[in-house]
């Protein structure tokens, strides 16, 4: 019973990955919108883009980690 509850929790935690996907999409989309408006400034901001994506994605990875912990370690 406890294990099954853990599995349900893992599934719920996995929703966070989807949320992170929305976040990453937001970052990349806004970058693209800005880059199309001012292409000359785009190249200098790719590093910022990747840092932003990394931060957004890290939170998704945290939820994925929680899911894994619930699946395998609890």
């Amino acid at each position: 019973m406890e294990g099954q509850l853990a599995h349900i929790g893992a599934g719920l935690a996995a929703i966070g990955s989807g949320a992170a996907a929305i976040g990453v999409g937001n970052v990349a989309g806004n970058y693209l919108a800005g880059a199309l408006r001012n292409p000359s400034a785009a190249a200098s901001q790719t590093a910022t883009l990747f840092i932003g994506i990394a931060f957004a994605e890290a939170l998704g990875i945290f939820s994925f980690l929680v899911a894994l912990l619930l699946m395998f370690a609890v």
Partner: protein
Amino acid sequence: MASEAHGAEEGGLVFHPMDQFIVKPLFGGDAIGMFTITNVTLWMALAVVAVVALMVFGTSSRKIVPGRGQSIAELAYGFVYKMVEDVAGKDAVKFFPYIMTLFMFIVFANFLGLLPMSFTTTSHFAVTVVLALLVFLTVTIVGFVKNGLGFLGLFWVSSAPLALRPILAIIELISYFVRPVSHSIRLAGNVMAGHAVIKVFAGFAAIAVVSPVSVVAITAMYGLEVLVAFIQAYVFTILTCVYLKDALHPSH
């Protein structure tokens, strides 16, 4: 434990997505001591071999007009050097060999981990936590050595209203200490997630009807993983540069 449920799965559908991450001694025995030669040792040694092959033997001819290997080595050099210079500033160039070491190790460990049947050293928290802690310690020590107590100005946001500053200082302090956590878990999590997903898709391939879809999905995931392998190395390196910039120029 959840594992019992795994073993009792009916039919041929057995998922062991985490099996690929098990640390095993190479030469028999079960006990893993500090100095036991394990698959970790093997794949790290292969990463060293790859780095040496590219950076030392690739450039041994020292040609003015570079060949393939030398071009790639110079590309990697220029890539990281420019990153350090642009992000962390000119005075961070003396940390360049250190950052280059991190980048080369991570990128080669990630790519070697993509070989079938291989072991991915960067998917282990033990590895990434040490890498992140090394960066954290370096940055903190450099910050205090360079700026003395002025390094604490990093947490004192002088542009904010005075009443907010203590609260912001607490937030900044927490975010500073969360850095190595997110820094390490990002890398290991990404790599582990990708490899585990590939394994899960591979498990589905046991069903004949689903297997074509499964193979296509594995191929697509593999492509994504190649991208992730590089991007995570890049992100780890560039975040190191960002932290280093904070240490060298802590003014907010």
